[in-house]
């Protein structure tokens, strides 16, 4: 095997380890968001903290493509609040 093969392998490993770690963070964040949603739903008139959207970190937005998970319900809550509804 040539030198370049080892070089490519080393950098591939670096990227793979970092991507696996970032994916694991994204999964844990998603699972936590589901839990927050469940708590909010269990509370009549309660809502999950909105900073989950404002605070959702940029990498996760890239991973999920269309904005962080949980964004749609939060938007809906804000819209509903604007209409005077209670969620």
């Amino acid at each position, binding site marked *: 095997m040539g030198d370049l093969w080892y070089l490519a392998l080393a950098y591939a490993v*670096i990227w793979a380890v970092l991507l696996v*770690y970032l994916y694991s963070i994204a999964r844990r964040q998603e699972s936590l968001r589901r839990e927050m949603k469940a708590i909010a739903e269990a509370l009549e008139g309660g809502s999950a903290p909105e900073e989950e959207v404002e*605070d959702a970190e940029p990498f996760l937005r890239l991973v999920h493509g269309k904005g962080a998970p949980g964004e749609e319900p939060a938007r809906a809550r804000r819209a509903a609040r604007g209409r005077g509804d209670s969620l």
Partner: protein
Amino acid sequence: MRAVAGPSNLSLGGAGSRLQRALLAATLAVGLLALYMAFVYAPKEATMGDVQRIFYFHVGAAWTALLAFFVVFVGGLAYLRTRDRRWDALALSSAEIGVVFTTITLATGSIWAKPAWGAWWTWDPRLTTTSVLWLIYVSYLILRGAIDEPERRASFAAVVGIVGFVDVPIVFLSIRLWRTIHPVLVKSQGFDMEPPMVHALLAALLACTLLYAYLLLVRTSLERRRLEVEAARQALGFHQG
């Protein structure tokens, strides 16, 4: 730092998000520059050839791992002094990232060792002490998973994080204290390499440090939110799902 009291005092809010975005942008920019410098700007090493280019991010990852474990040490001490769980969250986040960077260090070192030394692994002092370091902090993470009671878990973890840090100076000094085949990078006269190689190394060190800062911010924010959910569950009498 204040004690965990409720959801509102844990969030970084919009400022935290802006800091995350700024750090991500800086990490990507410096990371691309460091890759350019490692692959194009730095000259080919005379003896080892192109495979020596592994060196820049191998050392960058090693430096970041040691920095991460220093933060675990500081977080552990601060937790034992204040009993504020946010210090524990910081230590846990840093330990996890430290293990990730130590894994990268060991893996890239092993891949580099094959063409350079003719073997994937050798029980050299630097390699052995780094493996022990990896095992200590993997045990730290396993220990946390094995204790249910949060205060006890945080206290035990803080002690392991502090005691485990003893291995960090041993890793650093291992190539000076014992006979080794691992190269000594910094000598009394300074860096033992060409100036463009030093520049590429410094760029890789900066890129890895920025990546660490970004990951620490993201991971700590996740852990703090987990504490919020845990507090909310306890307050509402929910059982863990």
